[in-house]
């Protein structure tokens, strides 16, 4: 498991208070993990803090799944 995925998972588990095995790459924050729009904003801000990157609003809109977050962050930090 990539380092980015592990760190993203940790943030999602902590923030949304969900079981780790539910946080798969295809899991949607809203549909599968019970997030609301405010959670999404908070997750994006948590990712920004954890990886020391900036995620613009138009990119944030497309980060709806764990995998999308990992992909975006990997590209930014890679």
């Amino acid at each position, binding site marked *: 498991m990539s380092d980015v995925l592990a760190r993203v998972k940790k943030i999602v588990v902590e923030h949304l208070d969900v079981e780790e095995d539910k946080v798969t790459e295809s899991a949607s924050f809203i549909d599968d993990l019970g997030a*609301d729009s*405010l959670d999404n904003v*908070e997750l994006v*801000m948590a990712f920004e803090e954890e990886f020391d990157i900036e995620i613009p609003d138009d990119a944030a809109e497309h980060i709806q799944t764990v995998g999308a977050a990992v992909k975006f962050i990997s590209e930014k930090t890679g």
Partner: protein
Amino acid sequence: MFSLEGKTALVTGATGGIGGAIARTLHAQGATVTISGTRQEKLDELKAELGERVHAIACNLDDGEAVDALPKQAAEAMGGLDILVANAGITKDGLLMRMKDEDWQQVLKINLESYFRLSRAALRGMMKARHGRIIGITSVVGVMGNPGQANYCASKAGMIGFTKSLAQEVAARGVTANCVAPGFIASPMTDALNDQQREAILSKIPANDLGSGEDIAAAVAYLASDEAHYVTGQTLHVNGGMAMI
């Protein structure tokens, strides 16, 4: 009731009459308080008066970046930030036809924009903590209007609308946002009024007296308390009955 033991609070404009009273009251209720203002000397005086559980951070609210940084500095000093009281405000009065651009802009910037910046910066920690209190000190004239104060009234009405939106956004996270709207409060400015002017003001106040900083501070302490967790998006008017809204 209304204990603030173990809570941390940031009060802007703490060197003014109302701000000082708010800082003293929150401190007396047990909170650790960060006082902010532009006059270092006044801040030091108040800090010395309150003794323990007090931090002072000078901040010029005209400087956007400094305002953005203030809640974080306060949180670092106190180990958290549970309560934000945006109290600082200025007036640049004049009839609208003669109002200069800079008088409009400065009042909006200090009174309204800094409230936005402070709230935005304070929210992050509050959302994480699932607890927070944002309290804006507005004014009765933000609801009633006042000739010669179009800029001030716009900024104070703006604070109320801002607070209602914010309250809806964060209510599900245990964070409340409310305003306190003072009426006529005794201050060096009201002390300077002559008897006739004073009489004219009092005739509009059913309580027949000016309010005090402590009257405002008590309302803030209530809204800051755990007991007020179900009160959000509201404006608490403290004005001796001069406006019943």
